[in-house]
């Protein structure tokens, strides 16, 4: 009897334990669809990626970790959530990252769901770049998608927090290109950033926050980043400085530059450290770039000297007119028309500086003459206003003196009448 009771008790305990275990397992498998188990488990275990952020564009668009890494975000069972059967691929090899991102970014059907206007040739472009070519060849030091965009804090380039926002691009590129040790391996300089920050473009972009100024990618491209070639460099600069490019390419200098393997614009202006141009760059002075190739007596030397004298004649006349304009303004006289004329003269000055790239003294000269005519007109208008000011002032002084004498005279007359 006692044995039977023990048996019954054992069976009951076993059944209860089995049922309890089953119930617990069942309970465990009740899934809450709203929970992203990738994030919750990795947060709980403090193993989220270092650069993970909640404002990542993919996360905001509703893609979970599994959107890129595969697996099942709705399962809280690690074996299921991270099983190859559920498509889990884990952390990709550096070499595979472009294809990894390209799964979606090269697929127009997927991309148009999120960004109908986004390009889908980034991966294709990437493999045309030096970064892409080297990565394909097995170089693990080169930049791939995450090097510039980050892996888990990706934001659109229009977002000021993004590593690819115009103001942040130089620093993003400089993470690698400023690393001397790394760049030495490729025989590349690592001082581009230090030169760029002092350049006219760098000052405009980084100090004046002018996002229209070019960052690295505006000249080198982004996904297809390459150093511009000898012939393409003038086209690169010409995207903004279009007239300079057209004039230069049509000038008699274009052909010799090609023959001598000179780097178009870069030959005179430099590249990363381009300084604001000055009229001293033209001519035969010590700051001139013309004398790098031309010697006294040759035709180029004479052209440089002539163009330089043209520029300085308009420049000095324009400076004089500007001083007169300020004087007219300070005297409270009408400066509107003078201001308009000077605006026209400034256009002529800019135009003639651009026409320097034709290396044609006639073309530069005719624009300079127009500018000088306008400036002369502005100066004579200013002089007329200044003369008018002094005429009014002298007239006023004279009238005041007359009235004072009259008043004093009147006073004495009244006094004599009283007597």
């Amino acid at each position, binding site marked *: 009897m006692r044995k039977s009771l023990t048996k019954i008790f054992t069976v009951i305990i076993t059944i209860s334990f089995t049922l309890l275990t089953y119930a617990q397992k069942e309970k465990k498998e009740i899934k809450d669809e709203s929970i992203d188990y990738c994030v919750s488990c990795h947060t709980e275990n403090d193993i989220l990626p270092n650069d993970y952020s909640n404002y990542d564009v993919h996360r905001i668009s509703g893609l979970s970790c599994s959107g890129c890494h595969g697996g099942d975000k709705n399962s809280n069972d690690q074996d299921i959530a991270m099983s190859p059967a559920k498509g889990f691929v884990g952390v990709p090899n550096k070499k595979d990252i472009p294809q990894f991102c390209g799964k979606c970014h090269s697929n127009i059907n997927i991309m148009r769901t999120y960004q109908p206007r986004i390009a889908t040739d980034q991966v294709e472009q990437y493999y045309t770049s030096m970064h892409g070519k080297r990565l394909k060849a097995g170089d693990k030091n080169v930049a791939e998608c995450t090097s510039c965009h980050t892996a888990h804090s990706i934001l659109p380039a229009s977002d000021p927090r993004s590593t690819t926002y115009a103001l942040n691009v130089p620093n993003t590129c400089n993470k690698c290109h400023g690393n001397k040790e790394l760049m030495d391996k490729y025989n590349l300089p690592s001082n581009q950033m230090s030169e760029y920050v002092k350049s006219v473009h760098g000052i405009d972009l980084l100090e004046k926050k002018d996002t*229209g100024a070019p960052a690295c990618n505006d000249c080198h491209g982004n996904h297809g980043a390459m150093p511009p070639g000898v012939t393409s460099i003038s086209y690169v600069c010409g995207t903004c400085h279009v007239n300079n490019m057209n004039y230069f390419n049509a000038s008699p200098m274009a052909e010799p530059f090609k023959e001598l393997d000179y780097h178009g614009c870069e030959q005179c202006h430099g590249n990363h450290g381009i300084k604001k141009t000055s009229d001293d760059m033209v001519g035969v002075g010590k700051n001139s770039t013309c004398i790098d190739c031309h010697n006294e007596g040759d035709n180029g030397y004479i052209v440089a000297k002539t163009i330089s004298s043209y520029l300085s004649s308009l420049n000095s006349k324009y400076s004089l007119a500007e001083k007169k304009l300020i004087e007219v303004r300070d005297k409270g006289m009408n400066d509107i028309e003078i201001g308009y004329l000077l605006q026209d003269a400034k256009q002529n000055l800019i135009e003639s500086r651009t026409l320097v790239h034709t290396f044609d003294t006639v073309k530069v000269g005719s624009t300079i003459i127009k500018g000088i005519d306008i400036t002369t007109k502005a100066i004579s208008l200013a002089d007329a206003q200044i003369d008018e000011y002094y005429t009014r002032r002298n007239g006023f002084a004279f009238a005041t003196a007359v009235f004072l004498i009259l008043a004093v005279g009147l006073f004495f007359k009244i006094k004599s009448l009283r007597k």
Partner: protein
Amino acid sequence: MTLNRKKFLNILLSLSGIAGLGAIFYPIFSYLIPPKISEPKVNSVKVGSASDFPNNSYKIVKFGRKPVILIKTVEGDFKALSATCTHLECIVQYKSDTHQIWCACHNGIYDLNGRNVSGPPPRPLTPYDVKIINDEIVITSAG
């Protein structure tokens, strides 16, 4: 105390003398310490006949101190925008072949609504209103 004629004339003459001195000295003080007078603001400018303005052409108009570009589109609509490029303040022009506003200094391009569409300009051009009153084009400050 009665006010006789002589006394009355003396008071009148003294007051006139003070007023006369005031009239002499006030302009001197005003000259030495000029009053703050703001420049009159230009709110509208008449430009000329609408029917004489050819389609697909433009002209630069003086609007106070600011140049304004007035464009007559291919369709015959008038557009007026600030003519100063938002990049480095060069004067923009209308390109009749591409129907865009172009800044020759750095190849900045704006559409006909003044929106900066390519090149370095950071901001759009400021729009002005254009009204045609009895065939006369009148440009006014927008808003």
